[in-house]
């Protein structure tokens, strides 16, 4: 029988080799990077606004824990891609900044650190190390603002709908504090 120019066995082997080469190259080249969703929520007792309505569940959660906030307003929300060694900064309206850093990815689980700093000196106030998961969120209190309390919510990336235009129009950057000085009595001393 005459031999034909194209051999299926060779073609299959070649395709598999290319597939594994590409996969290996991608695995080697890919640096750890994870996506998270962040929201900045202003909780207060000013009124009973829940904006957006999805924050009702957050209100209930806080209510169960003894926080009697009546108003929850999302000031901003965005998806962030964290790369190892490249922290993402979130500027907060209360002269603070939250730096979210991907420390490592071990066994598929991302270890993330949230560092809260006071501007302009960037004095570190607190640090929170967490491991990301498919469910659950971190509600990190980041200080008071505009008669309420600011809460930074960190969630899995697919749960956040970006919303950037919710900052109150009345908000203006406050004058910077003296270098190294922390604002006194900015945190709650008791339940709201």
């Amino acid at each position, binding site marked *: 029988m005459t031999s*034909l120019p*194209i*051999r*299926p*066995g060779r073609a*299959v*082997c070649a395709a*598999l080799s290319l*597939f*594994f080469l590409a*996969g290996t190259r991608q695995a080697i080249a890919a640096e*750890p990077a*994870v*996506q998270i969703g962040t929201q900045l929520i202003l909780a207060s007792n000013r009124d009973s606004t829940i904006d957006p309505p999805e924050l009702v*569940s*957050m209100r209930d*959660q*806080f209510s*169960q*824990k*003894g926080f009697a906030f009546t108003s929850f307003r999302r000031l901003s929300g965005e998806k962030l891609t964290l790369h190892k060694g490249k922290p993402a900064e979130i500027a907060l309206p209360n002269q603070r900044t939250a730096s979210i850093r*991907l420390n490592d*990815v071990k*066994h*598929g*689980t*991302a270890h993330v650190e949230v560092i809260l700093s006071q501007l302009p000196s960037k*004095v*570190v*106030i*607190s*640090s*929170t*190390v*967490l*491991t*990301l*998961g*498919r*469910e*659950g*969120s*971190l*509600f990190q*209190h*980041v200080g008071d603002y505009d008669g309420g309390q600011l809460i930074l919510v*960190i*969630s*899995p*990336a*697919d749960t956040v709908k970006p919303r950037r235009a919710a900052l109150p129009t009345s908000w203006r950057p406050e004058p910077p504090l003296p270098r190294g000085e*922390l604002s*006194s*009595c*900015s*945190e*709650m*001393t*008791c*339940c709201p």
Partner: protein
Amino acid sequence: MNRADCQSWTPLLSAFIDGELVSAQRLELERHLSTCAKCAARADDLRATSTLIRVGMEMRADEADFSDFADKVFARITPERLPWLERWKLSLSELLTYHRTAMVSSLVAAGIAVLIAVPLALRARQPAGYASPELAVQLVSTVPDAHLAPVVMKGDQGTIIWLVNHRHTLVMAPQAEPTTNGSQEADGGEAAGQNPSLKQQRPRGGEL
């Protein structure tokens, strides 16, 4: 010449004209034709008819176009090129017939490769960094100068970390230690965050 003689020679006339008779028969028939005018006339008619047919066939042959005759013949005798699917089937059947061991080992290797590659591909689809089922707080710390105590509370939807300022309560209540994730710490933090004044007002027993 009698009638029976003519009837016996008549069927041989055509073969005689075509030169197909053996010499003995041909000599006898020629002798008969020389004596029988009727059979001789019949033989002449047959000869004329044969000539007419041959001339007519030659004329038809001259009219026919044989310029691409050879190409047509070669086109018929050359095997037709099969479509690619048929070629692959043929090649596969050839491989499975004559190279069975190599093909079976290749298929096994390909199967193993698929078994390895499919889970990897499915894993790649999962968002990176989310192998754990639930978000968990590992460590919370504050700087001493900030006079903040982190209170960790675990709820249904996640973990709340509340920063409690204890600058004015240092004298009245012990400083809250930085807590780690856990229900006990969460409960303690919540209590500290909600009602620090309860500790101050709690009656203390006197000396016995």
